[in-house]
């Protein structure tokens, strides 16, 4: 009986498997669509003007499999729209962008007038800093400054994702005693005291609340931080906040949010231009996966690097999409790090009064935001950090969340020899077994992601 049932199930199983395979999402029709889209883009996209193909002609073109192509096609910028943030209705407001740019470079937002956003996010250093971990006022921060390239495309901010918008990230950094050492009342007072800034503010956000004046407000005030890692040096600052009437505190929060949304609007303009990689992929799509003589945007070594990126090296597992980042969190170091990363970032975000579910977000409920805030805090998130974008990475060395690697060679060596420990480790993390030559190809490809056109 069992035998008969087994044979019957075998037949049924095979039939099911066949159907199940048919039911799997296929990329064939998508490929067709993408090809048409890419053709249109190629014909009209202004970014193609002036682009120079690689000087080295393709001598030994590589062959990409259908599976590799299905992943490669998502890497090009041609599909990318401008970054959006529905929680910030001023995100594309030209005057907000202009005000945000002024504030971004203004050291007066810090209480001691020593640190601006640009102090750590230096545009000449890839919107980051060459220090593995920058020192401010003699104190070394615990993480490397993340580059701001394409940060508007990230769904989480900070290495641990404790902010779900750029304006929340700006508030956090401004009030962090180890970073800008500012506070929201200090920021409001800056607007009240500076006629030019106040004029800009009014032109975007309207009149300042009448409850806010230089005479009525203390010099500094902010609530006690709930997040770990934020040192508090002056208790009177928190006492001053608690003594303010609730309505005044609300007005301060609103104005502060406006200011930080303008900084966020500016940061969302920091998008990287297309590279030779994008041109190569666009042409590859047009040529339906074949590398033709028209497609000399990448030389042979760089093509080998791209193939390794999506195959043997498996970089694509996390560095996917046009931003070369899945925007999510992974544990890739297995030493005894005191930094819990995402595991703490989640709780910080969920308890933050300025998160995407707060009254300060401009759309309620935010589409998709509710679900994003239902982040799951599980053990695998311990010491997990956000996947950084790889675009323009040559300008933002050193690498990793703590800046431990000075070069791309060191990064690849790490993955090539990785030895994950613990049953919560990502099972796909295994030693890559790349030859020295293959490692060199990969580095050459990664460097093209910073190519100047």
């Amino acid at each position: 009986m069992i035998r008969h049932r087994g044979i019957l199930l075998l037949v049924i199983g095979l039939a099911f498997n066949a159907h199940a395979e048919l039911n799997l999402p296929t990329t064939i029709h998508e490929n067709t669509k993408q090809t048409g889209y890419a053709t249109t883009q190629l014909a009209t996209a202004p970014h193609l003007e002036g682009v120079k193909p690689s000087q080295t002609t393709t001598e030994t073109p590589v062959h990409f499999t259908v599976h590799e192509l299905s992943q490669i096609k998502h890497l090009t910028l041609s599909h990318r729209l401008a970054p959006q943030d529905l929680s910030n209705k001023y995100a594309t407001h030209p005057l907000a962008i202009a005000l945000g740019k002024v504030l971004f470079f203004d050291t007066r937002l810090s209480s001691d007038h020593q640190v601006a956003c640009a102090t750590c996010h230096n545009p000449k250093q890839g919107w980051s800093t060459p220090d593995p971990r920058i020192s401010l006022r003699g104190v070394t921060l615990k993480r490397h400054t993340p580059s701001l390239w394409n940060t508007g495309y990230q769904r989480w901010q900070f290495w641990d994702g404790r902010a779900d918008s750029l304006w929340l990230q700006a508030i956090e950094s401004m009030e962090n005693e180890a970073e800008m050492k500012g506070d929201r009342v200090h920021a409001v007072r800056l607007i009240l005291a500076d006629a030019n800034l106040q004029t800009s503010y009014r032109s975007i956000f309207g009149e300042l609340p009448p409850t806010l004046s230089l005479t009525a407000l203390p010099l500094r005030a902010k609530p006690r931080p709930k997040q770990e890692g934020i040192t508090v040096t002056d208790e009177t600052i928190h006492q001053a906040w608690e003594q303010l009437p609730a309505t005044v505190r609300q007005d301060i929060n609103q104005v502060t949010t406006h200011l930080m949304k303008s900084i966020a609007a500016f940061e969302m303009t920091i998008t990287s231009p297309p590279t030779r990689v994008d041109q190569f992929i666009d042409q590859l799509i047009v040529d339906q996966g074949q590398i033709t003589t028209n497609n000399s945007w990448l030389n042979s070594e760089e093509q080998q690097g791209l193939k390794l990126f999506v195959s043997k090296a498996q970089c694509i597992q996390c560095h996917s999409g046009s931003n070369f980042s899945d925007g999510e969190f992974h544990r890739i170091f297995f030493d005894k790090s005191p930094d819990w990363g995402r595991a703490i970032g989640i709780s910080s975000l969920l308890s933050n009064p300025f998160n995407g579910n707060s009254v300060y977000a401009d759309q309620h409920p935010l589409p998709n935001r509710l679900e994003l805030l239902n982040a799951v805090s599980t053990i695998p998130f311990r010491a997990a950090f956000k996947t950084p974008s790889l675009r323009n990475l040559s300008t933002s060395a050193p690498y990793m969340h703590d800046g431990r690697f000075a070069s791309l060679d060191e990064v690849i060596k790490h993955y090539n020899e990785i030895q994950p420990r613990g049953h919560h480790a990502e099972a796909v993390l295994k030693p890559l077994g790349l030859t020295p030559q293959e490692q060199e190809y990969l580095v050459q490809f990664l460097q093209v992601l910073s190519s100047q056109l």
Partner: protein
Amino acid sequence: MLKKQLLIYCLALFFLPVRVMAAECNAPTCYSLISAKDNYHLEIQTTQTVPINQLFSLDIIITNSEGKPLTSKIDLDLDASMPQHNHGMNVKPVIKNLGEGKFQVEGMLFHMSGAWTLSFTITKGITREAAQWVVEVQ
């Protein structure tokens, strides 16, 4: 040797808790499943082909094994994991029970490419029954 392999395959199928049924609705946005003990039929409708690293939602209609509406109240839980990676989703989806065996699941996010296993748990009173759906995301 071949007989042995066949026997192992048959046994595996016999004890397999979940079977993927042929789609009666139109793939790639509609899928049908039968639960582990054959008591429920699940029709899963997506708004689009399951995307990589983008939020998507599911509309689920659960009927009895004959495809007829349920007469008892049920509840549904859903999780998704990547067995080959040893992890699951980084977000927790929101499941709305619309009654009459209909559910809306919002906030699904598959942030990596590869095979994802969706594990459904249907609860009726004190009884629970599982169903699984394996989807390859590219």
